[in-house]
């Protein structure tokens, strides 16, 4: 009789766990308030990325997922590895604007425009603009970029 009670309790526990897992994976955020909170969080992370890029930081584990796709402005594909050192040039200015944030359950797609200014080693200033897309995915250790692409902005005919 005691065994039967334990079995029944375990069964209820397993079913509850299963239901919780299914809910987490199938539904995600539902209310406008939840979506607004996610948008706010993602914008904060985007800003964090902007500051890291401006500082020329090379460690991106806090924002990039292991195995994330990163497409450069020349169309090359980099598959990010945890702990990877991403060398970058030192920037004098890095602005982001025209942000579009679309929240889908535990995936968020962000597009934006980045205006970058820097200097050559012999101190000659140059600047360029890139349209970018970051795809964020929520995992057990928070929101991480799972795919990103950069496209150089240029006028027609160039």
């Amino acid at each position, binding site marked *: 009789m005691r065994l039967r009670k334990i079995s029944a309790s375990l069964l209820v526990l397993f079913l509850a*766990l299963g239901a919780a897992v299914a809910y987490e994976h199938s539904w995600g955020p539902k209310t406008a308030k939840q979506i607004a909170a996610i948008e706010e969080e993602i914008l904060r992370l985007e800003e964090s990325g902007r500051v890291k890029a401006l500082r020329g930081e090379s460690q991106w584990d806090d924002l990039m997922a292991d195995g994330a796709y990163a497409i450069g402005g020349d*169309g*090359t594909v980099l598959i990010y590895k945890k702990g990877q050192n991403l060398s970058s040039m030192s920037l004098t200015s890095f602005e982001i604007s025209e942000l*579009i944030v679309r929240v889908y359950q535990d995936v968020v*797609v962000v*597009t934006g425009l980045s205006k970058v200014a820097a200097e050559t080693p012999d101190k000659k200033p140059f600047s360029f603009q890139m*349209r970018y897309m970051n795809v964020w*995915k929520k995992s057990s250790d928070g929101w991480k970029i*799972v795919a990103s692409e950069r496209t150089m*902005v240029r006028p027609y005919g160039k």
Partner: protein
Amino acid sequence: MKKQFLQTAFQGLALAIIWLSLTAGPTLGQTEVVNQAEDELKALMKRMATAQVKYDSATLDRLFTPDYVEISPIGEVDSREKVLGFYTPEAKSKDGGPEAVVEVSEFRLRVYAEFAIVLERLSFSTTIKGKPPIAPIVLRVTAVCRKENGVWRVASTQYTAIKSH
């Protein structure tokens, strides 16, 4: 005694089945789900590329999600309506009636339940009647796809020119 043993064994077996269905079950089934998604997403991407070269906006209309957004190879953000406008018969006439073929390669995929990220290399070879062939345009595309009512659709794309080295 024997009856009690069988009862306990049966209960143990039932619990083991429940446990497996909650843990190992999804893991074993995941491979099949990803394989099926890969086939469906490859077909979706092929249909999209073919519809683009054929100026088939009706097909693209079916393949895009209602909130589709595209980043073009020149870095512009184009709305769904604007993109569909590029692929009408009128637009084809305006472009000089080009005939193009697209070669798709370097397919890469990540599937996250109802979402997927697809990467491809697209090579467009275009000819316009009476003119010499245009040099192939080679692009990298990242597509964010979403499952709606059991059907994969494209929610976002970004195209970047691949520079020849």
